[in-house]
């Protein structure tokens, strides 16, 4: 992995403080990290370690108190609300623990929603949303509403929604936390497939066997990154339906 090219994510002494009455809580106390294109990174740590704050900052849902955050080389700490919304829309896909699909609209409409905010014509939205659903294996469930789908299927819809805009980065916050082990493995398989195609993935988890899917594990404690372990490789036997699971090979382009 080259240190010279433009990283998807680069933070320099990233800090976030919250004011709780007279106390100042340092949720993030200076984190510097670089995540290259095509990496699969797991973020671990106990609750209160700052990993959620870190993820919120990476996802441009929040702005740092100080420090720098470069997304694909652009300094985004200074972006306003509208710029951040556009960045999230075009470049970042979110996968949540509890799926967070809109309950009243179909799977297809859920997946097409980011494209609506991206101001694409309606027909193209539907085509691309249908394609994304097919990629996660739900081509036959497009007109189902979330309540008509199982947890695993809902999470797949959520992944389709995350990838429909062809983002540079997918942020997954405990994507298997609400699923049983078998379904969780399926979801991880899908994420790995996406990673194999070059999409950078950052995943928060507290389960070590989930973290083992990642090529790199960042461990947080008390607002700091205390460990950055690389080259763990993928757990043997993890499903990787297509492509070769060689991160280095993909990271080049």
């Amino acid at each position: 992995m080259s240190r010279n090219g433009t990283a998807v994510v680069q933070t320099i002494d990233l800090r976030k403080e919250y004011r709780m009455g007279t106390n100042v809580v340092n949720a993030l106390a200076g984190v510097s990290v670089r995540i290259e294109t095509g990496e699969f990174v797991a973020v671990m740590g106990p609750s209160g370690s700052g990993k959620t704050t870190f993820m919120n900052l990476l996802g441009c849902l929040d702005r740092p108190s100080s420090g720098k955050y470069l997304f694909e080389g652009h300094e985004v700490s200074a972006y306003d609300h509208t710029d951040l919304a556009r960045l999230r829309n075009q470049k970042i896909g979110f996968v949540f623990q509890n799926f967070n699909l809109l309950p009243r609209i179909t799977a297809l409409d859920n997946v097409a929603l980011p494209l609506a905010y991206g101001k694409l014509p309606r027909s193209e939205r539907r085509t691309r949303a249908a394609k994304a659903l097919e990629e996660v294996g739900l081509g036959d469930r497009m007109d189902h509403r979330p309540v008509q789908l199982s947890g695993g299927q809902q999470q797949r819809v959520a992944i389709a929604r995350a990838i429909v805009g062809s983002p540079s980065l997918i942020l997954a916050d405990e994507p298997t936390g609400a699923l049983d082990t078998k379904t969780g493995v399926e979801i991880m398989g899908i994420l790995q497939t996406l990673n194999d195609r070059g999409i950078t993935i950052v995943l928060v988890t507290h389960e070590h066997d989930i973290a083992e899917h990642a090529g790199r594990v960042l461990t947080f404690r008390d607002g700091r990154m205390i460990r950055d372990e690389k080259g763990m490789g993928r757990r043997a036997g993890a499903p990787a339906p297509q492509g070769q699971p060689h991160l280095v090979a993909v990271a080049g382009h």
Partner: protein
Amino acid sequence: MTPSDLFFSALQSLRSNTMRSVLTALGIIIGVGAVITIVAIGAGAQANVEKVIEQIGSNMLTISPGQARDGGAAQGAASRPTLTAEDANAMKTVPGVTAVAPEVRGPVQVILGNQRTNAVGITEDYFTVRGWKMSRGRNFEDWEIDAGEKIVILGSTVAEKVFPGSDPLGQIIRLDRVPFTVMGVTAAKGQSSFGQNQDDVIFVPLKTAQQRLLGGRLIKPDSVQQIAVLGRIPKELDIIERDLAELLRDRHAIVPGRADDFMIRNTAEIFQARAGVVDVMTLLLTAIASVSLLVGGIGIMNIMLVSVTERTREIGVRMAIGASRSDVMMQFLIEALALSMIGGIIGIVLGMVCAQLTAHFAGWPLRIEVSSILLAVGFSAAVGIFFGYYPARKAARLDPIEALRYA
């Protein structure tokens, strides 16, 4: 999000909570419906007044024997027979006067058919001044009136009652035992603005009425009960009124400082004043109905606030996947707007139905003005935007992280 996206998304959201949406829109429905109904009723009443003014003519003055005063106590109109046919003749010389129509009026018995009706003693100008038209036969001529001929012109109701199915022209009709020859029949005029049948009437020459029919009831043999004067143009009426008063005071030898013994009224003005009252009432009721719109708007604000809270997580998700603050703002604003506009449209339909029913039962012309519909649409849109703004802003200002964490 294109406008149509926002619109369909708003409809979807309103439909998913149908009962709540309907109840919320009810405030607007009632408000708009009431405004449309009241404005239409007001306009209908106005049109009715205009119709009456058109009937009586807008350039007409009526002169009646005035209040006689007896030691300071007013004794009421017509308590002294101060006006005569001679006064009427003299009025013809006043500049600007085009026609003068004195009249006497009283009940008579029609022997043929045994009906009671009103006899009106008139001169040639009467029909012109009062806006009557002949349907058959002819008007009286000057010499016939001067000679006190025993001839009549029948109102259409009398003609139908006394001579059903036959031609009354040339027939003999007995009024209080005096035989009269029918010279003509007037065209139907319908009800007066007070609801009386104006066609239940028999016209006779003034002199004939004074001498042969109503003589016993008149204090002076040539007194008249009312004189209608037609001016050339409405603008001149004020001057004519002043000139007539001068003439009559002169003729009646009223010394300066003493009160008139006659009354001059501008009938159109009276009706216009009545129309003015209708206008004020309409305005007042519209104001009251508008309060309902206001309350409806507050209802929308209330429900939108609830909706924003309920959908906090949805807002968070939308923001995470790329909705900007203005996207979220527009979403809720359009939703409030859709709610108020749908309410407004239903209200317009409801109001039109109510106005139609009212017009039907009151028997006056239905007049729903486009301006009042546009006003109602505009007003309900304004209500939606005004009361939807605060909740929408609240939604747009949500912190996506907090919103996503909302249970």
